[in-house]
């Protein structure tokens, strides 16, 4: 379990992605080949393991690009279930601050919940 990612997370929730949309639907100039192509994913929260969400759902931003710079970053899709280890991140391209899961270990399958809780408890105890 990614202890460092869990310790540094602002919000950890169990949930299901309900909607994915492009974050910047209008043509954006300038463009680099490494543009993250940020998308928004709405996660319907089923449980909160860390942090305090403002409602029953939370919006996360993720780079949908398959470019070399972003292909290993988790992609979200509608209906996807999991444990989401989220951090508040400044997204300069969009001029916003939002929750992201940029490390491959920031999205865990639901059956890893016990391990996540264990890591959280270990972090609190240390």
């Amino acid at each position, binding site marked *: 379990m990614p202890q460092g990612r869990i310790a540094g997370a602002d919000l950890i929730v169990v949930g299901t992605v309900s909607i994915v949309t492009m974050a910047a639907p209008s*043509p954006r*100039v*300038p463009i680099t080949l490494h*543009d993250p*192509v940020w998308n928004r994913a709405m996660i319907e929260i089923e449980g909160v393991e860390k942090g305090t969400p403002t409602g029953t759902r939370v919006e996360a931003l993720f780079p949908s690009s398959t*470019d070399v710079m972003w292909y290993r970053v988790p992609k979200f899709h509608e209906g996807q279930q999991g444990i989401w280890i989220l951090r508040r991140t*400044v*997204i300069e391209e969009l001029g916003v601050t939002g929750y992201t899961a940029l490390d491959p270990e920031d999205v865990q399958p639901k059956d890893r919940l016990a391990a996540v809780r264990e890591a959280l408890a270990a972090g609190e105890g240390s």
Partner: protein
Amino acid sequence: MQQVTVVNMVQNDQSDEAHQDSEPNLTVNLANPRELAGTAFTPDPASGPDAPIYVSADGGNTWSLNPIVPYGNNITGTYDITLRFASTTNNLYLAYLRVDYSSGFGPTYPLDVVRTSNYLGPAQAVILEEIGDRDVDQPFIQAATVPAGPDAGKDRIYVGYNDLSAWPPGRSASLDVCLDVAAASPVFTTVRLEHRDTSGQDGPQVRTAIHPDGTVYAAYYGWRATTGLFGNNTLVVTDADLVLVRDDDWGQGPNPFTALVDGGDGVVGQRVVGGISFPFELTGNTLGQQRVDGDISIAVDPGNSSTVYLAWADIQPVGYTLHLRRSTDRGVTWSPDLLTIENATNSSLAVTSQGIIGLLYQQLEPGGGRWNTHLMQSPDEVAWHDDLLATTPADIPVRQFDPYLGDYAYLTAADRTFYGVFCANNTPDPANFPNGVVYQRNHDFTARTLLGTDGSTRIAPSIDPFFFTVVPDPCRALEDQVAALEDEISTLIDALASGEIPPPPKTAASIAAVRAYIRKLERELPHLNQRLQQCRSVHPDPP
């Protein structure tokens, strides 16, 4: 006799790897051409903090990895990375992109320029410049050592890149110049190459060519109009200029890279071609799994700085197409297409000391089944010899990320020899490499399979970098022409004798027309043979 060597660059102890090691680059130490270095999207096998470069000290026969590039990542090493030896000082310079999360607030994408004076040693390369506060793309470096005059011995580098922070007004084609980069505290100057309005930005390809007399050329796509959306993979550059700028004194005057003024609009930067259109793809769509986003390559004749070549790409009714043109008056006027190549990308140009122009490119076969990597070469831009370096499956492996093969490949020349690098499917099938191939990693040519470090486990095909050298025979293209003409004459004579031609209804006139055509070809043959003999009188012993 021409010599062709192709070497898979993955070292033997990495025989288990199946990574997409795409987007290669290469440099040859002109002071000692047995010393070479390369790059690709290759992580450090030891998962250390530095990214590796490929190194060879035996002329490219064997390669190993040397992790010396600061701020590596364990997935692809770095992102866009290119490298060059200076001409005579043994210094190696690299320019590359990385992602930096260290601020804790979000990712930034710095461009770093680094130097090592010992590319084989373990010492980390020294950071010379870091552009961390701007949004930049595709750094592409060239380097030279000043050969004579008051600055003799100084290393100079030119890093072309797209500076998207220049928007507005969007004149983003940029060049960072350092006139004494081996100095203790090198000073970099940013030159904005674009002098016209853009659609919001220029293209990412900013390519330079340096001549030892101080002439430096730079070429870029000036974007004038676009449609579609990059995020939807529908962006098309509908109007672009291929622009060439030039400096005649190393780029060190008060107004660098302003020597070429377009006669049409009176603005700095010769518009070599206008009205260019091409897709600008996030992910491969036009050419199989390979994304296309424009191609630019430039080379200057080492024997004459007035002769400069440009290759570029556009979209034609037949598909994504490469073009090659030449200027003999320092970029003012240009030939028509010397070559036009359909469904091809990753063009790279170089000129040998004998004045032989080489064009490296990768072409997707009709039907999309194979990627064919070619080196075309010509002593006179009329007769061309084509070496097929590799013909490899295009649908295997499935792309891990974009770019599949790389947004560029690379060709260079040292003295009379071409050196190059390309990426391709690494299946060890001798039929895929018509001029032969050497593998360092474990393999079985008979079973056409890769083997792991244990020598027995089958390893899936992946994308690897392949190094090659071609020692051209300057008369080879003429020999090809003579052989082709002799073959055509022979075929026509046989077809006439067998009644295969002319097609019915056969008349005395149609038979006479065929005979006349054969006689015309037969009259051309002695002239060609004479040119070949003249060539052989100059080059009696093919290298």
